[in-house]
């Protein structure tokens, strides 16, 4: 017996955005399915450490949060979306608190707030330095509680999104990783919540599962991608292997030191020092390194000195980085500085959506890192990503549920299933020869980290584009070893590599196009911001020949005109 899953709302990805969308949609009474290629608690939201921004302090106001976000975005963020995100933030924090998130308290028993980069006030609610994990696990508790109303498809891999004859998205084809069985999932609306594209880079703070799946799947059916050139390098990733050291460390008062033992941030951001925006701090560090003031044997590191934070505070509020320092760098952060450097962390760009998560493809929504609303513009503030996932996850879930009320359930033809089965079988049956998937992926990652990083220029970007073209050809014929069906991770890896190459190509094309420096995009050949020419989003759509076609869209400005950005 074949089972034919049909749901009002199908959510792909079960991190914070996906789980929040599922719970919001289910609350309206519609039928909901949530699907993920990993068990939901393995989603990369689990790694978000520092916290979640919301103007809940009595002396704070959401408009200040919104202004900080606009400024952080280097004025590329859409201000209508930013206003929604920041004004709804306090309510969302309280909702999480009421369903069980164990936010840390202050001496009076109210929610405590810590300082974070680019913020004019302390406004980051947190759970030690495992905030993402705490929220993700609490949302999963709610999914367990509502197991009768939200169907979970854990360890299912989406092979493609379904587009009907009218160009509407009506579901997905997916493979049960455990059995290799494939199915059509019909749905009135599909919400993509499948995360970012960090694995385009090596090293990256992102998990191995962050392979641009949703970005490439949406792009494949004609949805535009926006702001893809904006790739965030986090200022404090472990020099050793690229693991994340939370911004919370600097929020709690840690210093950045160069080889002269000096807090060099005074030269770059005298007011905010270590707590300037991430793009500013990462560029400062890279400049110090490039000018010979880096630390470590190869001079490629910077010291993060956490010993200035009281030990009791480190133990209760930064426990995770105590562990990471000890286990992965052999450093006791309570006694000595730890060596860090800027590392790929987040993509501001993604599938273009409106403030309800709708993409230009009818029936397709996106929320979280896969999406670009755009609330982050050229640079995301720390602790705004959890907020983004939850606010726009919820709004997508509510809107998608509402949309389906008077619609008939779509039914995709069986041929769509057969196409995907044949495509995957063909990969499994590929003849041996060519390069290994892992070698192609490694080359891509190292190349991106070399040429499409903190500092970029025309020549490097053109070289990057050429290399990606070659890697695409190589990946089309790369053979795999696993011929089986149960947990064939090999064939999934081959498909993911294709997704990564699509996303990387879009990033490079957009970075070549934007001939200015703004936010995370710093062009050494165009070092200034140019509002006259480039105060606009770059949108990319897949062209007939498979390469990206460029168009532009306006930045929405409501109350804050662009101004010189200083920290």
């Amino acid at each position, binding site marked *: 017996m074949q089972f034919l899953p049909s749901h009002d709302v199908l959510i792909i990805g079960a991190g914070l955005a996906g789980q929040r969308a599922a719970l919001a949609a289910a609350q309206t009474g519609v039928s909901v399915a949530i699907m993920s290629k*990993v*068990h939901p*608690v*393995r989603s*990369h939201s*689990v*790694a978000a450490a520092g916290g979640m921004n919301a103007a*809940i302090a009595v002396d704070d106001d959401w408009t200040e949060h919104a202004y900080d976000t606009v400024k952080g975005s280097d004025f590329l963020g859409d201000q209508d979306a930013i206003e929604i995100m920041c004004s709804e933030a306090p309510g969302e924090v*309280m909702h999480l*608190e*009421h*369903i*069980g998130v*164990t936010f*840390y*308290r202050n*001496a*009076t*028993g*109210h*929610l405590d707030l810590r300082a974070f980069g680019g913020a004019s006030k302390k406004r980051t609610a947190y*759970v*030690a330095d*495992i905030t993402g*994990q705490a929220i993700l*696990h*609490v949302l999963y*508790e*709610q999914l*367990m*509680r509502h197991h009768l109303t939200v169907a979970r498809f854990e360890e299912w891999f989406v092979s493609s999104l379904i587009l009907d004859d009218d160009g509407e998205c009506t579901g997905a084809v997916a493979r049960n990783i*455990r059995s290799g069985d494939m199915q059509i999932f019909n749905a009135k609306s599909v919400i993509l919540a499948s995360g970012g594209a960090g694995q385009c880079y090596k090293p990256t703070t992102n*998990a*191995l*599962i962050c392979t641009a799946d949703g970005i490439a799947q949406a792009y494949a059916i004609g949805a535009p991608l926006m702001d893809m050139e904006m790739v965030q390098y986090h200022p404090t990733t472990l020099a050793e292997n690229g*693991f*994340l050291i939370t911004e919370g460390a600097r929020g709690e008062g840690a210093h950045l030191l160069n080889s002269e033992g000096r807090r060099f941030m005074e030269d770059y951001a005298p007011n905010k020092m270590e707590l300037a925006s991430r793009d500013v701090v990462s560029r400062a560090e890279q400049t110090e390194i490039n000018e010979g003031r880096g630390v470590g044997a190869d001079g490629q590191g910077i010291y993060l000195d956490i010993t200035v934070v009281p*030990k009791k505070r480190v*133990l*209760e509020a930064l*426990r*995770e980085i*105590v*562990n990471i320092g000890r*286990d*992965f760098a*052999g450093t006791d952060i*309570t006694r000595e500085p730890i060596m860090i450097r800027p590392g790929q962390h987040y993509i501001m760009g993604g599938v273009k959506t409106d403030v309800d998560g709708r993409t230009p493809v009818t029936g397709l929504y996106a929320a979280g890192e896969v999406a670009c609303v755009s609330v982050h513009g050229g640079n995301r503030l720390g602790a705004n990503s959890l907020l983004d996932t939850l606010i726009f996850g919820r709004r997508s879930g509510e809107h998608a549920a509402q949309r389906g009320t008077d619609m008939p359930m779509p039914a995709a033809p069986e041929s769509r299933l057969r196409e995907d089965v044949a495509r995957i079988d063909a990969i499994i049956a590929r003849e041996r020869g060519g390069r*290994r*998937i*892992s070698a192609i992926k490694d080359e891509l990652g190292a190349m991106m980290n070399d040429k499409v990083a903190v500092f970029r220029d025309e020549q490097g970007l053109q070289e990057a584009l050429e290399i990606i073209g070659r890697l695409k050809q190589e990946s089309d014929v790369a053979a*795999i*070893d*696993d011929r*089986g069906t*149960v*947990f*064939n*991770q*090999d064939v999934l890896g081959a498909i993911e590599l294709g997704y990564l190459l699509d996303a990387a190509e879009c990033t490079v094309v957009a970075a070549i196009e934007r001939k200015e420096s703004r936010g995370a995009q710093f062009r050494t050949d165009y070092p200034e911001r140019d509002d006259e020419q480039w105060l606009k989003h770059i949108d990319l759509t897949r062209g007939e020949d498979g390469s990206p076609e460029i168009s532009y869209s306006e930045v929405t400005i409501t109350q804050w005109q662009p101004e010189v950005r200083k920290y």
Partner: protein
Amino acid sequence: MAEYTLKLRRYDPESGEPAYWDEHTVELEPHRSVLEAILQAKALHDGSIGIRCSCRAAICGSCGVRVNGKPGLACHTHLDKAQRGARDGVIEVEPMGNMPVIKDLIVDMDAVHWKKIQRVTPWLEAKQPVPEREYVVAHESMVDVTQSMACIQCGACLSDCLSMEVDPLFVGPAALAKAYRFVGDPRDAQTATRLQDLADDPHGIYDCTHCFKCIDACPKGVAPMSQIMRLRRRAGNDFHIFDANNGERHERAFVSLVRQYGLLNEAELLPRSYGGDSPLAKFKPVAAKELASSLPAIAKALLRRKVTPAAVLKPHKLAASDLKAVKRIYDTIEGRDERVELNLYISGRDEDLLP
């Protein structure tokens, strides 16, 4: 760079063949992880090696395995350390125990781990009315439950749980740590119900045998057994709940015996566990019945000289000064206003506290 040989336990459910060992040699720096070694073998030699993994940084909880027979995360075990623990210089990696194997190093966590989590009502039953803003609660209480919130659901603690091996229905270390996360949460309205539920279940909090294996296995310092002991103290001391396994009375018997004699008096342990502190305890019907059914065990203990007939009649005797010292310990602990609970997030590890 150094060379390491990995011996992976492989199982292909489609082959019809039993599990087998598969060796690969990799080259990596000694402080790299066992996971990186497996991923290198997978990348360079055999892409069909099955292992769940994602974050590589001991946060996502995907890569629970046994390395040289010990459960833990592959990404959290350094190669040099694994090499030191290896037999014949070969690092053995096997799937976790107590859960069915799906393929190679991948086990069915739904069949065991997640079922048990679902068992403990794993969501907040919030106190009513829900306030408009946050619940006002002590900072310490949130820091306290963070130790169990820190659990990443990797399953390492289940893998070698001795109680679960004997009693597959045991709720188990991970789920009970999860239960403490709600019992310790001042915003939860169901504390008494939760404790009663876990005490009434013969596979609940008193089904743990204090073997410490889960504490050793946990990569995140959650110390599941400590959370289980805290559930017991909350149930027994604070809510006066007597459990289905008679565990609470048994613990009280220990405490009263050591208070009286300074040492354990095995001969009196069983009568007191069932009959209470009275000298006539052993003549209470319930105790007598339990004694009778324990006679074979007692006989065996006598035969193996774990207990001597003399000791049964004449309890251990401690020097008066030592007995006084024991009493002082009791007085100090019982004189405290609050129970002191060990918590990693509050006290840190021993090595953290060195000057």
